């Protein structure tokens, strides 16, 4: 809008300018304290972002909590739920204190920012008609901060699936606090932070890495941290021998459903607008998810003779993961392709690959989130449509985009793997990562939390 606005201001006489002013006031009736010069907030976009924030929180509690909780054994279900809930609380405070500032302020492509420590200065901006942040020109900064907070919450919560049933709660909390500040915020800064003109500021964003809603920042990031975690901790007692069947896939199906519904906020919300791009992001999210779910289900039906509930919901989540970086850039046909690829490849990663490499990633965080995130990130470079997101993909001739996407993926994998490894080792030294064998056998619900399902 700004260009037309300027053209207009200088090209038309003062009477018309006055009209426009009046109209600006008109549009701002919902934002009484608007400073005259600040860009007005768009109440429609704000409404959608408030909603999206609620939807993304719903993904973690109770969505992810149930998705994971249903897959563990009955003696560990409360402990599993507890982790998602406690991480939600923990990251909320950390994001308020440093996380948001680190990720979304500052002016260095690598170094994080300190302008909003303790959300300093946001009280005022948050309620003005304008918005403080170049990343969110049409909504209040408080809303943008909240929306981004929900992403910062779900990312560490995703990791907990990898080492389910064996980690100490205390160690988990300390690890996640460190990881959130030292891994999540920096990577978000590198991919998503913007300068005052709204252009990419972080070095990965500047390079042209496309990640609309967090394929790299959220899923690859969490997935690789999970893999490192389960490697460092070793397999569950009795892995490969005892029956570790999910105790209640009803919970997991509800969880997967809430993840799906909430993901509309995740992806379509990442448009930070209530417009056609948000609409298309929602559409491709739906389409890719369905394609991936059917692909995983079919692959399993062919290989194992039966289509399973766990299969179709795992496929859906794989599709949601893969379309995350691509939504906002690709169209319906790209979505189908990405969904089919994610469904089949993540099925293979969570069954054959895991079987071959013999790591015990309890709930397949690596196989679904890291692998699905990589599939999505790279295929974004293939299927991006200029008319939708402003960037061409390989199919429109911009073959380089694939390489750029790979750099984004590689950087995240490398940084997160190394830092996560160090953090796990550190926490292991100081607190110890694993519960005792007795506690693991008895179940974490009673051992760690003194509660049980009756």
């Amino acid at each position, binding site marked *: 809008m700004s260009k037309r606005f300027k053209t207009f201001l200088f090209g038309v006489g003062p009477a018309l300018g006055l009209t426009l002013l009046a109209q600006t006031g008109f549009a701002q009736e919902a934002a009484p304290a608007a400073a005259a010069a600040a860009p007005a907030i768009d109440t429609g976009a704000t409404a959608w972002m408030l909603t999206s924030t609620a939807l993304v929180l719903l993904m973690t509690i109770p969505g992810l909590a149930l998705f994971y909780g249903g897959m563990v054994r009955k003696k560990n279900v409360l402990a599993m739920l507890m982790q998602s809930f406690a991480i939600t609380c923990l990251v909320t405070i950390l994001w308020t204190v440093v996380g948001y500032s680190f990720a979304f302020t500052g002016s260095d492509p690598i170094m994080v920012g300190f302008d909003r420590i303790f959300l300093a200065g946001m009280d005022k901006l948050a309620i003005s008609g304008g918005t403080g942040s170049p990343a969110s020109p049409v909504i209040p900064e408080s809303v943008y901060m909240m929306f981004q907070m929900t992403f910062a919450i779900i990312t560490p919560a995703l990791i907990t699936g990898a080492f389910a049933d064996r980690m100490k709660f205390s160690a988990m909390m300390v690890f996640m606090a460190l990881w959130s500040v030292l891994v999540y915020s920096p990577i978000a800064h590198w991919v998503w932070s913007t300068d005052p003109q709204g252009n990419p500021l972080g070095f990965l964003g500047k390079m042209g890495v496309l990640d609309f809603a967090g394929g790299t920042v959220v899923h690859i990031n969490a997935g690789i941290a999970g893999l490192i975690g389960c490697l460092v901790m070793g397999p569950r007692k009795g892995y490969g021998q005892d*029956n*570790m*069947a*999910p105790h209640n896939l009803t919970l997991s199906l509800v969880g997967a459903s809430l993840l799906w519904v909430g993901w509309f906020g995740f992806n379509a919300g990442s448009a930070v607008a209530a417009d056609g791009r948000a609409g298309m992001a929602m559409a491709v999210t739906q389409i890719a998810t369905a394609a991936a779910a059917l692909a995983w289900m079919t692959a*399993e039906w062919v290989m*194992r003779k*039966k289509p*399973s509930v*766990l*299969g179709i919901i*795992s496929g859906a989540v794989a599709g949601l993961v893969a379309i995350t970086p691509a939504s906002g850039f690709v169209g319906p046909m790209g979505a189908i392709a990405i969904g089919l690829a994610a469904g089949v490849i993540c099925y293979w990663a*969570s*069954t*054959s690959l*895991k*079987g071959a490499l013999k790591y015990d990633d309890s709930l*397949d965080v690596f196989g679904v989130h890291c692998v699905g995130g990589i599939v999505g990130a790279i295929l974004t470079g293939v299927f991006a449509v200029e008319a939708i997101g402003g960037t061409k993909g390989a199919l429109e001739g911009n073959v380089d985009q694939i390489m750029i996407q790979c750099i984004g993926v590689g950087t995240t994998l490398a940084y997160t793997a190394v830092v996560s490894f160090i953090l796990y080792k550190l926490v292991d030294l100081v607190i110890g990562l694993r519960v005792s064998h007795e506690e693991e056998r008895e179940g974490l619900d009673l051992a760690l939390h003194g509660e049980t399902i009756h």
Partner: protein
Amino acid sequence: MKLIMAIIKPFKLDEVREALTPLGVQGLTVSEVKGFGRQKGQTEIYRGAEYVVNFLPKVKIEVAVNDDIADRVIEAIQTAARTGKIGDGKIFVMEIQQAQRIRTGETNAEAL
């Protein structure tokens, strides 16, 4: 008195109960159990992992009866619970030395 313990397929429970009533059996006690035997279980598959379920759901009936009807009770269970397919279950008979009804204190035959 005898305690007749029968392990049967769960869906046969109602038929067995109905078969016992005409014999004068006025009460019995039932538990959900898991049985291991010749009958092979289903395979459950969860992503990469397969679990052969060795223990199958069965129902255990415990019924105390007077010696005089014990044989007819056994036969009635045998007939009602039978499908002819593997896993139909077993009947075991044990001696009860004493029986007592809690409500009234009646003992033995009157207690049943």
